């Protein structure tokens, strides 16, 4: 692996300058060897974080036994894929991913437009509120909706029956609808967070030009606003679709009881419920998925190829909002409704559940505070909490720095190797987390003994960075894609050094996206489970694993308590983040 990385570095160093290369690219390529060293380091790091675990999985998919056991090389894992049942499973998976992504994207665009481009009241507060669902661990909302939408005893069905006098129960979360619904709890705020800053940063003069040429509001929105949002929208939609393909919790909680199989639950079955575990099949399926998803990413590159989407230029501009008149209260109510359905209902269920002896049994004699005492008195909780805080802060910071560097090379330079770097950064997103965790397990365990990553907290950190890099790259790429090159050129012609240009121009304009990404990654790390459960060891427990143990042991009440604590942290972080962004934007 090391030799291979060095070969790549040599290839980068030997790349000839091509005619027509922009002067910035030439300058970057011909200045000090530090550039080459930095890029080499980046390639080596990405190789270790992405390619190495995947190579373990590739070995696993071609070998009849896991690494470390005697066996034979064959294609049995891939041959097992082609069955009629798997075709149905694939259709289920793709169908659910589409059914989740399309309405989520529509909703997210609508919400982003409302909060970034209109004069709807309390936009800052509403933005914080409607993004909360993304930060709640799926197991919590699964518990909550499992109670709310239960076909036999769910609260929503009981309310419906009480209001209508009917005996029927219209809502059943254990269904395709339930799977999609639970997924949308995350994909709408996820998409919103990815695209809202692009909406906010857009220069309105382009819309005004269209209006002055006689275009209607609707046509302006379709031909100018949406077109300029294309990088953010397509990138976000693709990430959302990929996560829909790879989503595991929703099909597990709500699909499996209804007999709905998707690829991830099939992989989960083959790993966790076979004796011996069928790693060869699981890893082979994952590589097939990776290939299919990679084609989707190539599609995005093709859509965006050769088109300029720069909306932040050297010319002065002032973001303004559209005045809706009395319609602003309609949009306000719509945002509140979204918040109520996606936050108030499930979190309310958790809150109520945490105060009763048994989750879902609301009798006065069962009121208790014992679950709060149990959580705050638990050594497991505090150890998991402190480990998660450390990993969250360090992991989110390092991941955003790495993602920012990769995105800069990918979007702002002309280096021929930039596609390689971008692809390497993307790879972990192509692989379901429940399989990637196995890759990390094998990879870290089989490193030379002198490298003591296995079984330590650093194994988790490296896995989190790897899992988070695609998101950080996506966020920073969208931010950089909107910066015109003339901003950097202006700085340099006035004598600014490269570092000054980066600090005062690129970073200054892109850091709101950096902050959004940081918070997303922090809470992504907090709730990450697939890799954590395989990589944690004694002393390196994390909160997500503590939650899983409590859940598996039937302690839904304590899970609710911890969930509420996490919600409190989310609210605090988002409030601080938005305050800082607001004051910073006012200063611009």
């Amino acid at each position, binding site marked *: 692996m090391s030799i291979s990385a060095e070969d790549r570095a040599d290839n980068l160093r030997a790349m000839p300058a091509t005619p027509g290369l922009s002067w910035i690219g030439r300058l970057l390529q011909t200045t000090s060897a530090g550039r080459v060293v930095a890029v080499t380091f980046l390639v080596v790091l990405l190789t270790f974080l992405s390619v190495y675990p995947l190579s373990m999985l590739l070995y696993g998919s071609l070998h009849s036994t*896991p*690494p*470390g*056991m005697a066996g034979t090389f064959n294609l049995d894992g891939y041959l097992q894929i082609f069955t009629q049942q798997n075709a149905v499973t694939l259709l289920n998976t793709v169908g659910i991913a589409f059914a989740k992504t399309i309405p989520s994207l529509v909703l997210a665009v609508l919400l982003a437009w409302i909060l970034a481009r209109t004069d709807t009241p309390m936009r800052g507060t509403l933005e914080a509120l409607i993004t909360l669902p993304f930060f709640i661990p799926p197991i919590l909302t699964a518990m909550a909706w499992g109670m709310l939408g*239960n076909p*036999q*005893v769910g609260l929503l069905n009981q309310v419906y029956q009480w209001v209508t006098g009917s005996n029927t129960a219209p809502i059943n979360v254990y269904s395709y609808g339930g799977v999609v619904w639970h997924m949308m709890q995350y994909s709408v705020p996820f998409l919103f967070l990815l695209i809202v800053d692009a909406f906010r940063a857009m220069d309105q003069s382009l819309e005004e030009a269209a209006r002055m040429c006689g275009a209607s509001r609707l046509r302006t929105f379709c031909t100018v606003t949406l077109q300029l949002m294309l990088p953010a929208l397509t990138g976000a939609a693709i990430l959302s679709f990929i996560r829909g393909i790879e989503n595991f919790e929703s099909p597990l909680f709500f699909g*499996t*009881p209804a007999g709905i199989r998707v690829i991830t639950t099939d992989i989960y*079955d083959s*790993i*966790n*419920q*076979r*004796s*011996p*575990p069928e790693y060869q099949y699981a890893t082979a399926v994952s590589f097939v998925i990776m290939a299919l998803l990679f084609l989707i990413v190539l599609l995005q590159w093709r859509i965006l190829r050769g088109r300029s989407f720069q909306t932040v230029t050297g010319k002065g501009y002032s973001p303004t909002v559209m005045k809706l008149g009395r319609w602003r209260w309609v949009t306000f109510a719509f945002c509140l409704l979204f918040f109520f359905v996606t936050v108030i209902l499930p979190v309310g269920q958790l809150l109520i559940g945490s105060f009763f*002896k*048994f*989750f*879902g*049994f609301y009798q006065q004699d*069962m009121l208790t505070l014992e679950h709060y005492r149990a959580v705050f008195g638990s050594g497991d909780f505090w150890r998991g909490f402190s480990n998660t805080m450390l990993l969250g802060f360090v992991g989110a910071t390092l991941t955003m720095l790495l993602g920012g560097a990769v995105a800069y090379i990918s979007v702002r330079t002309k280096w021929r190797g930039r596609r390689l770097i971008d692809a390497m950064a993307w790879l972990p997103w192509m692989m379901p987390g429940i399989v990637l965790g*196995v890759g990390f*397990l*094998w990879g870290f*365990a*089989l490193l030379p*003994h002198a490298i003591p990553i*296995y*079984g330590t907290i650093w194994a988790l950190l490296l896995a989190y960075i790897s899992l988070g890099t695609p998101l950080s790259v996506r966020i920073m790429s969208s931010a950089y894609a909107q910066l015109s090159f003339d901003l950097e050129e202006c700085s340099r012609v006035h004598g600014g050094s490269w570092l000054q240009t980066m600090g005062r121009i690129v970073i200054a304009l892109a850091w709101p996206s950096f902050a959004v990404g940081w918070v997303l990654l922090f809470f992504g790390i907090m709730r990450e489970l697939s890799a954590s*459960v*395989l990589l944690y*060891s*004694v*002393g390196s427990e994390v909160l997500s694993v503590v939650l899983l*143990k*409590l*859940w*598996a*042991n*039937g*302690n*839904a009440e304590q899970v609710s308590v911890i969930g509420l604590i996490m919600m409190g942290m989310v609210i605090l972080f988002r409030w601080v983040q938005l305050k800082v962004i607001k004051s910073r934007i006012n200063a611009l």
Partner: protein
Amino acid sequence: MLVKPGIAKAALVACLAALVVPAHAEDASWDAVVSAAKKEGKVVVYNMTLGAPYFKEVLKSFETKYGISVESLDLRASELAERIRTEQAAGRYLGDAEMISSTMIEEQLKNGDFIQKLPPIPNTANLRPPFKADDHSVPAFVQPMGILINTRLVKDEDVPRSWDDLTSPKWKGKILSDDMRPLGSGNAMFSILQKSMDADFNAKLAEQKPVFSRDMRNDARRVARGEYPIYIPQIFAFASDLKGLPVKIVIPKEGAPYARMDLAVLKNAPHPNAARLFIQHFLSVDSQLIYANAWMLPVVAGAAERADPEAQPFVNAKLIGPATLSERPSMMGLAKKLYP
């Protein structure tokens, strides 16, 4: 000729002295193990108890008694198996003792040398029949399973008192069950009942269209909430903390299918003496009593008799089984055939 009394007395004393010497030597040997364990200061126990409070209670009593800290690595069965295999294959020896099912240990012995031969553990002398130690592992406890019912939804006259009662038409579509196709309690029950009941019992049960779930702990709560009237197989211990809820365990007259959990020492354990001492402690009557009061079946004599009155029916339940490793492939195949 009458033997002189003095000579007889001397002979008796000599015999008694001869008996005492080995016992004394053995005591001294075990004290050395205890001292070495305390010097090691720590033991890492790989297990799959999923945070069970009674297991944690035993860990605390061990720490309190000997001053040796216990680190628990608590994973699901398949994850734990792959963790151990990977660590041993890579030569990274982090675990000391393991507490897993007897079939998993059998599988480990078949697939490689993941565990080492067990040195003598004094408390194995206290195992009650039919439980006994072998070269590599000792029984830790038994996990029997029965039928959980919601007492508000199931009338007294309808209570299923036999496994056969589950095939009554009144329960069609109303049985919540652990999935019988994958490895786990559901498959263990399936395999054991396939041997113990009529040949077509499992086929009849399949016609009842049980609803599968994989959340054993939470499924009992679902029955309590009234989502389903019946859940199978209900591990006794997983209902012992549901007092106050309208659920009850029925032990069918044919008996309770069970899985046995064993303790073993991992190969190249970093803290081998602490591991031995932990196993010794787990086989003490006090530790077994903690499990008995949680409705697990103890393996040491004396614990069942001392259990709480409400635990008595469970710790003395009639057992059928267990499932065996050699039968697993055919049983899993049959389960997949009956439940496609």
